[in-house]
């Protein structure tokens, strides 16, 4: 499989917890954390970045609701936690 395919599969897998089939057998599984935990590090980074972007884009909402409630709403949203069919895909898409 080409580098381009691998990169698309990787990006898909960290954007959506249910779409990591393309990576199975391609990641080393030795001792320590398993594949899902390792991909989880990237998923968490992505989630935190999305929260940061939305907080910057909607500062009034974030202020009115308060940091804790605002964050909880975002964390509970599938758009933040990863679902390829969600509209949040546009958050990481740059138009060509």
């Amino acid at each position, binding site marked *: 499989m080409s580098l381009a395919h691998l990169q698309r599969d990787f990006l898909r897998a960290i954007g959506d917890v249910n779409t990591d089939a393309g990576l199975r057998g391609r990641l080393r599984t030795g001792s320590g954390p398993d594949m899902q935990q390792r991909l989880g*590090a990237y998923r968490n980074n992505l989630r935190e970045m999305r929260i940061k972007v939305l907080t910057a884009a909607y500062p009034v909402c974030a202020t009115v609701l308060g940091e804790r409630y605002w964050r909880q709403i975002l964390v509970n949203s599938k758009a933040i936690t990863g679902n390829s069919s969600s509209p949040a895909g546009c958050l990481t898409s*740059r138009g060509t």
Partner: protein
Amino acid sequence: MAAARSSMVGPLAGVGAGLRGPHVPDILAERPAIAWFELLTDNHLAAGGGLRRQAEVIAERYPVSLHGVGMSLAGTDPLDRDYLASVRELAERTEARLVSEHLAFTSAGGQHSNDLLPIPWTEEALDHVAGRIDVAQGVLGRQILIENISAYVEFTESSLSETEFLETLCRRTGCALLLDINNVYVNAVNHGYDPSDWLAGVPWCHVREIHVAGHTERDGLLIDTHGGTVCTAVVELLLSVRHLAGACPVLLEWDTNLPPWHVLETEVERLQRVWDRHQPEPRQLRHAS
């Protein structure tokens, strides 16, 4: 008011700090004796505006380098030549001594990750990345430094070691290395090998800069968060290569849980003292090759 330690001409030297926006007022008011500052390229690219002015004001007072995250040098989407031209313009404007990027991809199929993602160490990837570095250096009109990243996964198809990959890249393209010691440590712990073994493979003749940072443990993994002081293990690793690093400038990165300026300044001063104290005898220094 203290003067900056580094000369405004010549190569970078000593321990520098990554510039973060909230610290700029204190830095301009106090003019701390920091050897140099690293500017995050992507924050200052847009011509005009406050962030560009910030970069220019710092560059008037301190030697600076540029460190970017947006080139996607290992990516398979087309290189963004407008982006590269903007980096060149910023580098010229700030008289940046060094321009660095990561050995990572940040987009695929038009989707952007906002994270530095790993690649397998294969001949295919090597050819691909070398070609893109050639193009990037051509547009920039200068050498770039490539940084080893923190990678939480390893690929089964890798046929080279990471250091072999880096050495070949430098030899083929004329690029240099930015060695991130914290990333070496984080990867070694997460993948279960000895960081000293990894460092033994580093082609030191190509290393032009070193990074250190803090990390965090989460769910059984060390995460490269740049969110605190540099731990003892990473400092010891840094000092273990002191005689090989020669006059390489060292940079402290601190991005999350950003403390007040004086805390970051204190950490830079601590690292500078340790770095100075372990200065090797001339006979111990590596020979440039």
